């Protein structure tokens, strides 16, 4: 999500809140209320966010009221609710990632989300974005985590190995994979590139082999080299972007849509260059899914259909500063000029992440922060 | 030595011999852990009486008062108000007025508000408004214009009187005063104690007064209980305590005194006995009229005392005569003297011991002192 990009909701101890503003009890014949859970920046960000437009548009097209819920713990909030038997008080969740699904499924025995069911426009969703093997989540947009650099201060390397050059010592600021979405995406990208060295496979699973083809050099080796080259890993996207903006280092891990914002604010685009390492970027498709015990499952599916409509896709992409999930989205022709897509998006599938991602992060933490 | 704790309420000095008992302590002890602060004390204070607890620091005076006020509950024994046990009754429901040494005026209230505080919980007497009551009390303590002042702007003596007025405002049955004047300077103490006494008499309120100043105790009380080590040694009117101390402790604590001990040489004659003083080559004649009930017999051990003012001084070798006899004359040398204005307190060395005498004129060198056998008071008789 682009507002995620711009206004990163990643963690720290602090973020959002439970924004459900209303009850879901409504009698027959009255206007039904659809409660949509999402992350805070989807509806409330200082620059732009799609929430307000979506609500107005949806309510004008359907005889329904839309209520947003933005609990601070995001999807974990519903995991907790389900686990404590408190009942899930929303109809669908907007903004699920692959990892969210993996985590939810590992934690809960029962199903938190219902099957997709029939959603108009689902067929228009781009093939590579479908990330739920159990067909619950419907992708509605995607973003790419790449490097952003200040072209007036440095020329970012083209490859991962380039980051290890002495020239780029101390040049990169990344984020904590344990607390930040961009940080985690970048970590996963390095795993995809260098392999996991069997970290997560304690006996059962397969080791991930890296695209670099070197079985003896895994992501931990790469990070050891990065650390030796003075990489900075800060807590959140905010921290990192602030430090980068203040010129503490010329390169930062961020989103490939950075120039859209820079342009909005009239900044020098030269200072906001995008670099896809090895022509790749880690893709973070976002999906939506209906809760298993939604009060308004059908209305929720109508909402999903609505979101996949071409004009809505276009609006979401622009307002969330991301890329549409469907091939039919209506976007201004110059959108791609500023919002760049990599030639070769990479991402881990649900199956690859399942049972591994925790171990990958933990192994990285132990290496990086060992005291 | 035995402790004589007789309640001589039939003494001629006690002003209310038949008045009902207002406060009674019955076999009361108070222990803190291992330490016994009050040890089996039984007292009866009559209505309207000015009753004083006097004793050295740590003897349990404050604890006794706190047991009466209800700030502490006795470990053993009963406290009764007008015959009713008050066990478990919290202080706010005991109808006592308390004045502390520190006065404990509420610094955030004016003098008037301080005095009025207790009227939040008790109606003023019928026909009197709250404000009138406060004005009356401030009048009573001679501070008619102080109502709007800050307690901290008052002198110590004025604060003390405000504390009195405050304690009296709700019309308590019993007034408890814990060393209410010890923070004041000597002259002020003298002035205020007269005032306290006057107020007490005017209201004829039962008053229990704690002090360690024996002069104060003598000056104001109807009866005095001399306490030592958690127990009372004597309970009697001031003159009795001063002139006929029941124990050696009382003799030495209340006023200056010279205490002797020795063995009776022969049977009493003319109301006197001859006593061979311990470790001294002297035989002294001692009157037995004022002593305890037991009349000393030959061979008994006795302790007796003679007040400094009863030791008459002459120059060295001058005879001190009584009628025609020269007797009870002791030779001593002046050790030190303190000029007190009216008199000089002179300390004499008499052998290894010290004697205290009072003189008007300075003394020096060797002197002879003597006393009238009737001025001696037998404290204690230990039969052979």
């Amino acid at each position, binding site marked *: 999500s682009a507002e995620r990009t711009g206004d990163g909701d990643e963690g720290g*101890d*602090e973020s959002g*809140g439970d924004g459900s503003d209303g009850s879901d009890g409504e009698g027959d014949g009255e206007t039904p209320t659809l409660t949509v859970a999402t992350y805070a920046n989807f509806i409330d960000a200082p620059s732009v966010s799609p929430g307000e437009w979506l609500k107005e548009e949806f309510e004008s097209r359907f005889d329904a009221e839309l209520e947003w819920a933005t609990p601070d713990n995001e999807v974990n909030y519903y995991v907790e609710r389900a686990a404590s038997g408190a009942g899930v008080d929303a109809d669908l969740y907007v903004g699920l990632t692959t990892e969210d699904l993996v985590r939810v499924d590992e934690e809960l025995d029962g199903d938190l989300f219902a099957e997709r069911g029939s959603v108009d426009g689902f067929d228009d969703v781009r093939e590579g974005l479908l990330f739920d093997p159990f067909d619950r989540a419907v992708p509605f947009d995607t973003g790419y985590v790449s490097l952003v650099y200040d072209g007036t201060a440095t020329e970012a390397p083209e490859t991962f190995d380039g980051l290890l050059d002495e020239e780029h010592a101390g040049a990169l600021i990344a984020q904590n994979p*344990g607390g930040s979405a961009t940080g985690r995406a970048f970590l996963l990208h390095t795993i995809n590139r260098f392999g996991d060295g069997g970290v997560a496979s304690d006996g059962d699973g397969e080791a991930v082999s890296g695209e670099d083809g070197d079985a003896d050099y895994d992501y931990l080796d790469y990070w050891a080299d990065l650390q030796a080259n003075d990489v900075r*890993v800060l807590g*959140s996207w905010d921290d990192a972007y602030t430090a980068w903006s203040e010129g503490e280092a010329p390169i930062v891990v961020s989103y490939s849509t950075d120039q859209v914002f820079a342009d909005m604010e009239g900044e020098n685009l030269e200072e906001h260059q995008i670099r896809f390492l090895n022509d790749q970027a880690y893709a973070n498709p976002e999906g939506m899914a209906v809760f298993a015990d939604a009060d308004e499952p059908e209305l929720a599916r109508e909402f999903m259909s609505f979101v996949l409509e071409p004009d809505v896709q276009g609006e979401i992409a622009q307002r969330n500063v991301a890329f549409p999930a469907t091939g039919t989205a209506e976007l201004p022709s110059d959108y791609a000029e500023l919002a760049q897509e990599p030639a070769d998006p990479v991402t881990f599938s649900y199956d690859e992440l399942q049972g591994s991602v925790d171990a990958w992060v933990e192994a990285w*933490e132990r290496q990086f922060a060992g005291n | 030595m035995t402790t004589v704790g007789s309640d001589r309420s039939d003494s001629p000095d006690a002003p209310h011999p038949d008045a009902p008992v207002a406060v009674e302590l019955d076999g009361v002890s108070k222990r803190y852990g291992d330490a016994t602060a009050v040890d089996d004390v039984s007292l009866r204070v009559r209505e309207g009486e000015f009753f004083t607890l006097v004793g050295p620091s740590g003897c349990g005076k404050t604890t006794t008062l706190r047991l009466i006020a209800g700030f502490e509950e006795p470990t053993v024994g009963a406290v009764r108000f007008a015959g009713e046990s008050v066990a478990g009754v919290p202080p706010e429901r005991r109808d006592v007025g308390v004045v502390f040494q520190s006065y404990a005026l509420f610094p955030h209230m004016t003098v008037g508000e301080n005095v009025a505080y207790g009227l939040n919980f008790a109606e003023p007497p019928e026909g009197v408004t709250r404000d009138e009551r406060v004005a009356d009390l401030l009048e009573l303590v001679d501070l008619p214009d102080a109502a709007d002042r800050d307690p901290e702007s008052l002198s110590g003596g004025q604060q003390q009187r405000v504390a009195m007025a*405050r304690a009296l405002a709700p019309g308590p049955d019993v007034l408890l005063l814990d060393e209410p004047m010890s923070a004041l300077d000597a002259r002020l103490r003298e002035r205020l104690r007269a005032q306290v006494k006057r107020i007490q008499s005017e209201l004829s309120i039962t008053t229990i007064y704690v002090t360690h100043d024996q002069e104060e105790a003598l000056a104001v009380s109807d009866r005095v209980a001399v306490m030592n080590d958690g127990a009372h040694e004597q309970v009697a009117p001031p003159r009795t305590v001063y002139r006929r101390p029941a124990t050696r402790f009382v003799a030495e604590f209340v006023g200056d005194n010279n205490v002797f001990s020795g063995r009776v040489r022969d049977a009493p004659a003319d109301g006197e006995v001859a006593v061979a003083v311990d470790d001294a080559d002297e035989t002294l004649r001692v009157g037995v009229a004022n002593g305890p009930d037991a009349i000393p017999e030959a061979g008994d051990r006795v302790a007796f005392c003679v007040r400094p003012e009863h030791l008459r001084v002459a120059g060295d070798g001058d005879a001190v005569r009584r009628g025609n006899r020269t007797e009870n004359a002791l030779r001593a040398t002046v050790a030190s003297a303190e000029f007190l204005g009216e008199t000089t307190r002179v300390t004499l060395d008499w052998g290894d011991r010290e004697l205290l005498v009072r003189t008007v004129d300075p003394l020096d060198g060797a002197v002879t002192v003597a006393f009238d056998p009737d001025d001696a008071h037998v404290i204690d008789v230990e039969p052979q």
Partner: protein
Amino acid sequence: MSDHGDDARDADDHGGRVARLRAWTEARALTALAVLTSLTLVVAFYYPTATVLVEAVVVDGAFTLGVFADVLTDPFYFGELARLLSGEPPGVVARALLSPDRRLGIVGFTAYQAVLSTVASVALGLPAAYLLARFEFPGRKTLRSLTIVPFVLPSIMVGVGFVATFGQNGTLNAALSALGLPPVDLMFTLEAVVIAHAFYNAPLVARVTTAAWESVDASAVETARSLGAGPVRAFVDVVAPQVYPAVLTGAALTFVFTFGTFPIVLALGGFELATVEVFVYRLVRDLNYAEAAALAIVELAVSLAVLLAYLRYEARNATSTRGARPLPRRSLVPPSRSARDLLPRAGLAAYAVVAGVVFLAPIASMILASVTGGDGALTLDHYRFLVERQQTGAAFQVRPWPAIRNSLAFAGAATLLALPMGVVVAVLTTRRYRGRTLVDAAAMAPLAVSGIIVGLGLLRGLVFGVEIAGWRIAAGGAVAIVVAHAVAGYPFVVRTVSPGLSGLDRSLVESARALGASRARVIRDVELPLVWPAVVAGAAFAFAISIGEFTSTVVLATGADAYTMPVAIERFIGRRLGPATAMGVVLLVVTGLSFVVIERLGGDHRGL
């Protein structure tokens, strides 16, 4: 008999009953308050926290110490100490600990940085205490009131201010290069973290120390002087030992706060300096509750141990210096040109420079950021954004005015709730009885438990509620926020009020009781008014805690209409920091004014 008489008697009876009822309630008011306070604590703190912490030892419904043992014996967390805990002989471990490449583990490192931060906070706080306690100058009281402001600044704001001040292109380096000095590279070092911790905690140290310093008896100093000690020596021998317990209070609290630090380390230090709380956060986020809870318990144990050690020390050293004649304050303008007059003031001037860099520059940078546009020019755009958001924001979005209003309303209400709670606990802890330490510890626990765990606990315990007899009892929204804030703030009320109460002349209380007032009534009529300055100071802290509180606010807020200023700041953080910093400046101004007002209601006091 006439009806009239009956009526009169009824009325009498009625009046009597009312009076008796009032007396009865009054007599039990203290007990009732204590019970209510305990209930509040249980509902809003102990029960919720317990639901999380218990997961350390109950996994899948079965009791186990396995998770705990794993954490304790993991060298990643406990360094060389883990080897001891896993059974290696102490000698070997001791030798390992002394070797140069020893491992501290995360817990060890967290403690290490907390110790450094504590030292720095004390070092930066003491000169301020010296200035505030010993010198008279215009604005002294206001300055003293404002020392609490850093307490409420969200870490993100401090991060912004610090990067702008200490960064490569920051104010400090600009100043250094203007002076022809080489630049310093402070960012992303332990030093930066330690300075930021000092930014938060040195004012706290200064506050406690000032209060203690002001209560040193001048006679003691004069006696030392008459015995031959010069001014410096008299300070070292007489003043310092009496101020020392207060410094220790400040140090203990600083240690506890920095031991639980989280966002600031990662913002200014980087992941190499990760602390325990970072891992608690990550584990909770990944729903790995067992290990998170085990780590949180370790954290709690360390913090509580420090607090308890300090409380015991405080109890032992409680010397009441009632009626003391305070040392007279001196003028900041040197009365003469002698070295004796000039040196201390020169020292203070040097300190003012350091304090300017550490305390003022970050705040100034923050303010500057709020009026700087993307092109570096001055602009009011960010404030315009706030106005616009206020006017056009959707109902479900966070808007500035409701955030300000909520912050003030919650803080006011939380303060009103924290005060009786704190006072009751202070009353209980100033009495002497067995198990007092336990009460003390229980009362201080909210300071020592991981904020993340409390947040999760509140979610489970309050927001989801408890099922009792088929009813689910849940609480969210404004009331729950206020309660949670009060719980977080009341330990400060305890710590400010309790020294005052224990220093009160007991006979004041007893006088009031003898005059007919119940115990509770005495607290209201006598004790509270007399420790009023301390109550106000406690109120200021409770207010500050509530204003700055974030974690439980976002958990408990059940709609945009319950959001507070820190939440607004967090929401307004974008790629450009302008809107958030503008909101930060609003927070700064609103709270700064609040504190000046609040403390004007009080006066000088002992304690925090």
